[in-house]
């Protein structure tokens, strides 16, 4: 008997919105629960016990240590459905898809939901290190004079809250600053970045107008469509924006970089047998995945370049080339990130020296790239992006027909990258 295979049944997400807007008062748990409930309703799973729900968030309160389990308890699923939190930065929910697919392949579970959420509006506010030390000392002090002494050491500067930062702890640089270095190294032009951005917005707008998201999105708090989407954006409008990363000569703007986003997404992953027993659609099979990491700390490689390594290794293991794929989904952290990956795969030098290949991997056909838009237009609630991309790709593959293949690639903080292959059932 062959090992059970994991299939994607479908997905659900809330419409994504800019931080501090429509979901400003919703917690990460609220958002994740809404994404789960929409999925449960779409597939008629209310009251059912699933094998496991796996998910997480990048920006997380300590009170949310059991975020996914709490969301399950608040959802329409049977409360005896177990859940675990896991984290892989921006690739969190794709890593959750891999985790559940592997459990399904080993027969440990039959069904699960991979999910992720991020609410920049619900980000934990952190106090300064000095204030934290003082408060700990105050807690430990046993006498009144000791308590007063601890309190007296507080200085006004200690009281300023520390805004959540998307910076790399080892370099102190933000993700955008890191990408700016890579962008420059690969000579990615402003025009190319803006073109990719316009294409993303236009593709996402077309997908919405075609009803592509009718079976992938459930409205939340009165929001019925992605709010970061700008269907009318243009090269002219984007050209007017000032660079935000890479100094005055930089090419990266607020337009061709993802916005801070609130949102949540979930994807139903089950064994083929479970899908058949429960009469659920089988959109696409989970085929394989690869995680890569690069040494960005010493500047040897760009922070967001790990997918450039993960994808070739994944293709080699499966004996595939880009031409074998019908759809290629590359997470648009920044337009320049996608373009840097494409440039690397087209570079003979990169592929031979860094990847140990005999020749360049080749070009990605732009007609297959992010055909229904990606993070630049939809937004990027960090941990939710993998589930968004997995569900959308599975739906596209189903429409394309049996045997069609799709690739997902997501860059993540810490110099990591995750890639996966899906194939239509």
């Amino acid at each position, binding site marked *: 008997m062959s090992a059970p295979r994991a299939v994607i049944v479908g997905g659900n997400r809330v419409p994504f919105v800019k931080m501090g807007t429509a979901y400003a008062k919703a917690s990460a748990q609220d958002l994740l629960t*809404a994404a789960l*409930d*929409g999925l*449960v*309703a*779409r*597939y*008629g799973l*209310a*009251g059912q016990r699933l094998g496991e729900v796996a998910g997480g968030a990048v920006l997380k309160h300590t009170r949310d240590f059991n975020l996914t389990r709490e969301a399950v308890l608040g959802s*329409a699923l049977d409360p005896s459905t177990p859940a675990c939190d896991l984290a892989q930065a921006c690739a969190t929910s794709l890593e959750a898809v891999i985790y559940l697919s592997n459990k399904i392949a080993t027969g440990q579970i039959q069904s699960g939901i991979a999910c992720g959420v991020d609410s920049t509006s619900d980000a934990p506010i952190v106090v300064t290190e000095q204030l934290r030390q003082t408060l700990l000392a105050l807690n430990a002090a046993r006498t009144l004079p000791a308590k007063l002494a601890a309190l007296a050491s507080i200085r006004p500067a200690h009281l300023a809250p520390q805004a959540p930062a998307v910076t790399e702890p080892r370099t102190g640089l933000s993700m955008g600053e890191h990408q700016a270095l890579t962008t420059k190294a690969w000579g990615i032009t402003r025009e190319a970045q803006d073109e990719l951005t316009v294409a993303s917005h236009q593709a996402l707008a077309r997908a919405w107008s075609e*009803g592509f*998201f*009718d*079976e992938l*999105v*459930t*409205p*939340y*708090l*009165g929001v*019925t469509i992605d709010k970061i989407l700008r269907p009318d954006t243009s090269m002219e409008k984007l050209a007017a924006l000032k660079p935000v990363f890479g100094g005055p000569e930089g090419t990266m703007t607020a337009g061709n970089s993802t916005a801070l986003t609130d949102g949540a997404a979930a994807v139903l992953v089950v064994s083929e047998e479970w899908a058949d027993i429960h*009469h*659920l*659609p089988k959109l696409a099979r989970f085929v394989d995945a690869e995680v890569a990491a690069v040494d960005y700390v010493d500047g040897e490689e760009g922070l967001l370049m790990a997918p450039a390594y993960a994808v070739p290794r994944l293709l080699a293991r499966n004996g595939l080339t880009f031409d074998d794929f019908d759809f290629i989904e590359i997470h648009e952290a920044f337009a320049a990130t996608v373009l840097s990956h494409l440039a690397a795969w087209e570079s003979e030098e990169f592929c031979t020296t860094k990847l140990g290949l005999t020749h360049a991997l080749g070009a990605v056909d732009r007609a297959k790239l992010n055909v229904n838009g990606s993070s630049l237009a939809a937004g990027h609630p960090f941990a939710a992006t993998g589930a968004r991309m997995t569900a959308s790709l599975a739906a596209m593959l189903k429409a394309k027909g049996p045997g069609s293949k799709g690739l997902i690639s997501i860059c993540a903080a810490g110099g990591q990258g995750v890639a996966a292959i899906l194939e239509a059932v």
Partner: protein
Amino acid sequence: MPRMPMIERLYRTPVVQAVAKKAGLPEPPRLVRGRIYPTLPIALATPGGGRLAADTLTLLGLSPTEALRDVPDARTQGEDGRAKPPAYPTKLGALVLDVTGLRTIDELELVRQVLRPAVRALGNGGRVIVVARTETTLDDLEAISVQHSFDGIMRTIGKELRAGATANLLWTLPETTPADLASTFSFLLQGRSAYVDGQAWTIGHADTPVLSDQPYAGRIVVVTGSARGIGAAISRTFARDGATVVGVDMPASGEGLAAVMNEIKGSALQLDISTPEAGARIAAHVTSRYGDDARVFAIVHCAGILRDKLVANMDEKLWAAVLKVNLASQFAMDDALLDGRPGGIADGGRILTISSTSGWAGSRGQTNYAAAKSALIGRVRALAPRLAPRGITVNAVAPGFIVTDMTASIPFLEREMFSRMNSAQQGGKPVDVAETLAYLADPASQAVTGQVVRVCGQAILGA
């Protein structure tokens, strides 16, 4: 809940309520709803000797008492010296009157004899059910006229009854059996019919299965417009009675739809029903969620829109939008679901739609809406005989003033006036519409087809 306006809060105060009561605006009676039979006795009268009603009550396990008759010998002398009609020892839960055997004008006196004491005795939420013979099955002119008199009698009794009591009339054929009639009797006697008053409809004959409290167990029911209001109530009611509900609503209404479907363990389909492929999408959802062999038992067309304007201001867009969503979409969906495809409507299935009192009686500012809702009545009546060979029944309800989030936006005085313009002296609830649809769709209602039942508390409008 929207904040109550000052005038409404004032109206709810005890002092104003006392004044209102004196002014003839008492607090409306509290209607008893749900799958509950009357606890008080049911009286049965069969002037003319018909057996249909008696046998139907027996089939339902109900034991009626014999109705009293107001004949001179039975009268007593009152303290004021006047003759009083005979009185029942307790309040009555219902009077069931089988007049199928009556043929002459003189025999109508027998009906008066029964009604007088019974109407006096009917308790809160009492029921009068008149079982008559459809005139088209009679030849004799006098007999036809006599049978038709029950329409006027029933409607008048409905208006005279108070305290949430109702009167309804059932037209029957010579072939109609107690099994055919059982689901209707059960519905009318129980709280499920609380807001159905002053109505008449026909019970024919069919190969009717036995009545059950979980008629929809193992059956799939599609409800369009199910995210809120009446559609949500319909979904909940069918689910209560065992159905697996597929809720359909606009993608933009998905949040409410998901909440309702999760509550009743149904499944949600976000779909604009006015798109040409809506029927195919519903069928595909059914097979993909419930298996290739799954079929729809019933579809309830509840989705609808309003685009009100006086006809003097009505442009082609407002006109077309309402006709498309409220009428044409149902043709397209039914055509697809009836073509034998997997996930379509099974033979022996049900098609239900929601007309409106606006369609029945007309409504200022609603020519487009009234056109659609009236057209649906014509469609139901014509479609029923065409689908009869497949055992598919087609029926409609026509709600009157039903209190929903939408009606809450009507100004208080206007709303209070509208809601009282019926024998129940109050607006109905979404569940009243839902219960009527669930009765019409019941497998045991196989003999009920091509009917339009108003759920309006016997509204004055268009009665």
